[in-house]
């Protein structure tokens, strides 16, 4: 569901001429999130291979802030010569226009897509002793107002938030929702049993599911 795309700044004139020799100097790869996050990891791993294949260093520059829009704005304003590329994703190029009133870039017009790098599926997970054995029972619980099911999410606009919001709006249910800043604290309270369920990217949850400290009901296919 969440696609990570490498986007290239639109290069109308220089693009073709430079295509023969590109790249002749190091390329800046802007990651619009902090070092160590899922997007950064994907950029660093693939960046290694760009460097090896193309014979020039691809330097990852983390420009974090405002849900990734700070870094993408910086990239959109860079010289469109192909030496500034970005690792965008569903948040920066899909959700951002709906969430940020003063977005300084047009996700479609201001960029030239290069390619799809990776897709990360989303999991619906619950605390390990939540009284529902499968997705069907889980949905029944969600629909039962007396069950007072508590949902955690990683922040308004995050993948964790949009996925679970889609789920509850499709089912037409309203449950108790607690907002957290990031997956870490939300997951902590899920493992501790303070909340009942959450949705998030598989990379953030898989080890806890395997270890049995939480259980998974469903996976989305990207």
């Amino acid at each position: 569901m969440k696609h990570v795309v490498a986007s290239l700044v639109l290069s109308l004139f220089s693009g073709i001429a430079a295509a023969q020799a590109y790249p002749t100097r190091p390329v800046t790869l802007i990651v619009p999130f902090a070092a160590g996050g899922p997007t950064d990891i994907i950029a660093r791993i693939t960046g290694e291979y760009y460097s090896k294949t193309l014979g020039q260093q691809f330097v990852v520059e983390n420009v974090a802030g405002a849900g990734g829009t700070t870094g993408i704005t910086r990239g959109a304003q860079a010289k469109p010569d192909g030496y500034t590329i970005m690792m965008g994703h569903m948040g920066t190029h899909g959700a951002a226009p709906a969430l940020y009133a003063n977005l300084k870039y047009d996700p479609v017009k201001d960029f030239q897509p290069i390619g799809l790098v990776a897709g990360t599926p989303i999991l619906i997970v619950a605390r390990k002793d939540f009284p529902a054995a499968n997705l069907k029972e889980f949905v029944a619980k969600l629909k039962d107002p007396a069950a007072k099911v508590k949902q955690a999410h990683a922040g308004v606009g995050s993948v964790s938030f949009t996925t679970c919001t889609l789920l509850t709006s499709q089912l037409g249910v309203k449950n108790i929702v607690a907002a957290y800043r990031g997956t870490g604290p939300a997951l902590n309270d899920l493992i501790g049993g303070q909340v009942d369920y959450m949705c998030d990217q598989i990379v953030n949850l898989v080890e806890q599911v395997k270890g049995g400290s939480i259980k998974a009901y469903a996976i989305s296919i990207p």
Partner: protein
Amino acid sequence: MEFLGHLALGFATALSPMNLLLAFIGCLVGTLIGVLPGVGPIATIAMLMPLTLKVDPTGALIMLAGIYYGAQYGGSTTAILLNIPGEVTAVVTAIDGHEMAKKGQAGTALGIAALGSFLAGTVATLVIAAIGAPLTKLALLFGPAEYFGLMVFGLGLAIVLARGSVLKAVIMVVLGLLLATVGTDLETGQDRLTLGIAELSDGVDFAVLAMGVFGIAEILRNLEHPESRDVAVSKIGRLLPSLGDLRRSLGPIVRGTGIGSVLGILPGNGAVLGPFASYALEKKLAKDPSRFGRGAIEGVAGPESANNAGAQTSFIPLLTLGIPPNAVMALMVGAMTIHGLIPGPQVMLKHPTLFWGMIASMWIGNLFLLIINLPLIGLWVRLLKVPYRLMFTTILLFCAIGIYSINNNPYDVYFTAFFGLAGYLFIKLGLEPAPMLLGFVLGRLMEEKLRQALALSEGSFLTFVERPVAAGLLVLAAAVMVIAVLPAVSRSRAKAFQE
């Protein structure tokens, strides 16, 4: 004793020549970069993480952990010498550490910080090895309501931190709380108090605020009276703590280690409270609390130990739950993932050599830090003799580079300059920045936890009474505030009667 077997496995891994070398390089590089004013552990690890990509995962993590301790210790060095705390936990060190430096006791302060950190690190390593895994269960008892109680308790400490007027401390705490509300609202995603500046939508960065109100403000004040400053630092004094210093520091080190170890285990970034709690405790226990804030060695020894113990035990939630408790640990998760290891409850079982090797390397790293830093103290202290007109320009330059490197954002540099001017104003008004920084750090967490607790209880405040741990912490917080305020109240009343 199962844990002896684990430690043996760990040391067997960590003592391999390659891993020893990596731990040493990590500590050295971390110290050298961390000692630059404005460059804290987060910036240091983020900058140096690519260096570790070529090494095997165990070695890479050992090196990163070394960079972390090194940068943390380097941050204390700038806090003591230049009054520039690189991160939250060094704020407390700056209070008495810099006063000691002004009195010509910089070497003693740096020495006791290194020794205290080493002892705390040794104890914390044993704590992690022996009871790390069971302690995790305790940490999970802490839900939003309990964290809220803990944060309120922390605010009580802010009042104890105050050197002078309690009223002024309260004003600064409230200012810190207000600054913490700048940024995106947790539940609605709306911008709050950002004045329409997009760069403020993630709130004010701690490093920006600390660097401004401590570092830049200190420079402005020194420039006002350059002569008095040069006199103050021209006498260097002894480089290592005397026996008397050590005797006075032993209690604070032991207590600080205990406090730091326990708070570090809490996944909700409880480690930040460690140094503050230790300082408040030592001030309360001291025969003459008025020495605190004027260069009391206990005010350096206790918090530094708490800081280092917490820095280490904060690895427990990462290694056992797979949850990073703070920004540095989040970077470690990234590093582990790049090496194909996803941190989680199974790391301990699936990769025992990595897990125990890393824990053993913590102790080795602490030993290296001591070995690297004791000889360097003389060098750092001599740096103070550099003429101020050269020094302050260099500090400003490094501050600007360090601040910029955190988010690669020029606005952060402007904000730092702004807070520098604000900090200068505070000095002129006799307001202390430390309570403000504590309020700032706790404010964001406190608001989050309060709103989460209320969301989960469907708006019922009874949740803070019904949950025993939360209720207990709130009672404790009330007690601390009463104890802290009462003497001040009775003093001022006594004064009023005299007049």
